[in-house]
């Protein structure tokens, strides 16, 4: 995917020069390997810093909320779906945006790569579908397919759904992937096993809220966890409070989550946070036939009413 970089730079420079946009939101290299940073480029010099590789997993739609002016944005499949969600939720206008679509072949999981080596990783290079990871005294080349982030491995919307221009040829969508394999596994457990599974999953949570900050859906001016009058949820490390935070965070994403995986990517403890939102995504698909962010013309299921909405749960 590294060959998109030149095309992205060319398009970004052109739209800036033509005055179509005031800035372009993309990525630049981070200070440590595999940690690309979001980058706002408003000049041709700033565009030069832009890059594109398999470490661009953050969701750039997160940086659009309530922005003024005309904005160019680089969008992979999931970013474009979150841009659609933003437009539907009136957080940005479609005509403010110039979307540079990037057909994506998946992003790599830095948690997975860090876990493979005892030593510090100093360099991660990409060539075609091979990733070379090296540091002091070691170097290993691995197929990108084996390093994909879990959400990318089961992604069925790699191509952007909404764009003004593409930075590359559209890629084949993955078929034959079971998006909800991990959910089905938990569904098969007894209530006790489920409880213990999630207790274990959340046991390392430090309540840093990185998952919330990275999520393009979390744009409330004041988040419920930060409010103190009233205080909706305890701020302690008590397992009850931790679980309450994660459940409420997930419910806020119901019918909106595109499974971009930004929450898991930024979690410093490597918690599989998607286990919550995945279940809601699965329910949304089964109950309403809905996947978030696929169309600008359709209202989400949770803000529409139909007489035949499922209602078995209510008595």
């Amino acid at each position, binding site marked *: 995917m590294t060959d998109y970089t030149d095309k992205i730079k060319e398009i970004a420079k052109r739209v800036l020069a033509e005055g179509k946009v005031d800035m372009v939101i993309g990525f630049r290299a981070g200070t440590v390997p595999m940690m690309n940073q979001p980058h706002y480029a408003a000049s041709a010099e700033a565009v030069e810093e832009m890059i594109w590789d398999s470490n661009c997993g953050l969701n750039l739609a997160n940086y659009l909320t309530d922005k003024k002016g005309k904005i160019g944005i680089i969008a992979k499949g999931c970013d474009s779906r979150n841009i659609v969600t933003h437009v539907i939720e009136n957080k940005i206008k479609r005509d403010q945006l110039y979307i540079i679509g990037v057909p994506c072949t998946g992003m790599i999981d830095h948690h997975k790569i860090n876990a493979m080596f005892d030593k510090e990783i100093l360099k991660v290079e990409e060539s075609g579908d091979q990733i070379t990871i090296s540091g002091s005294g070691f170097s290993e080349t691995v197929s990108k397919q084996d390093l994909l982030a879990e959400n990318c491995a089961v992604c069925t919307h790699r191509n952007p759904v909404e764009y003004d221009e593409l930075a590359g040829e559209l890629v084949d969508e993955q078929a034959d992937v079971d998006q909800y394999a991990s*959910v089905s596994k*938990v*569904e098969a457990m007894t*209530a*006790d*096993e*489920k*409880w*213990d*599974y*999630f*207790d274990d999953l959340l046991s390392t949570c430090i309540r840093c809220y990185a998952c919330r900050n990275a999520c393009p859906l979390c744009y409330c001016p004041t988040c419920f966890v930060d409010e103190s009058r009233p205080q909706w949820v*305890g701020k*302690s490390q*008590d397992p*009850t*409070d931790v*679980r309450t935070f994660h*459940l409420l965070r*997930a*419910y806020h994403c119901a019918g909106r989550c595109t499974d971009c995986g930004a929450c898991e990517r930024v979690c410093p403890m490597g918690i599989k946070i998607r286990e*919550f939102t995945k*279940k*809601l995504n699965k*329910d949304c698909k089964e109950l309403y036939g809905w996947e978030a962010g696929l169309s600008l013309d359709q209202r989400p299921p949770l803000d529409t009413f139909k007489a035949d909405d499922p209602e078995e*749960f*209510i*008595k």
Partner: protein
Amino acid sequence: MKNLLEHTGIEPGRLHFSWISSAESTKFVDVVTKITDEVKTLDPANKKYVKTEPKVD
């Protein structure tokens, strides 16, 4: 809502939803009585998601 809570291990039968108008006092009584009766039959050992005194290791 019910699905995710039960997915994360809340015992089925502990979570109830009902739509009751402020004018439906008798329905309210019926529903609450039914819920308390049902919940009482469940094993108290499965009572979870209740904040207690902090654990001391």
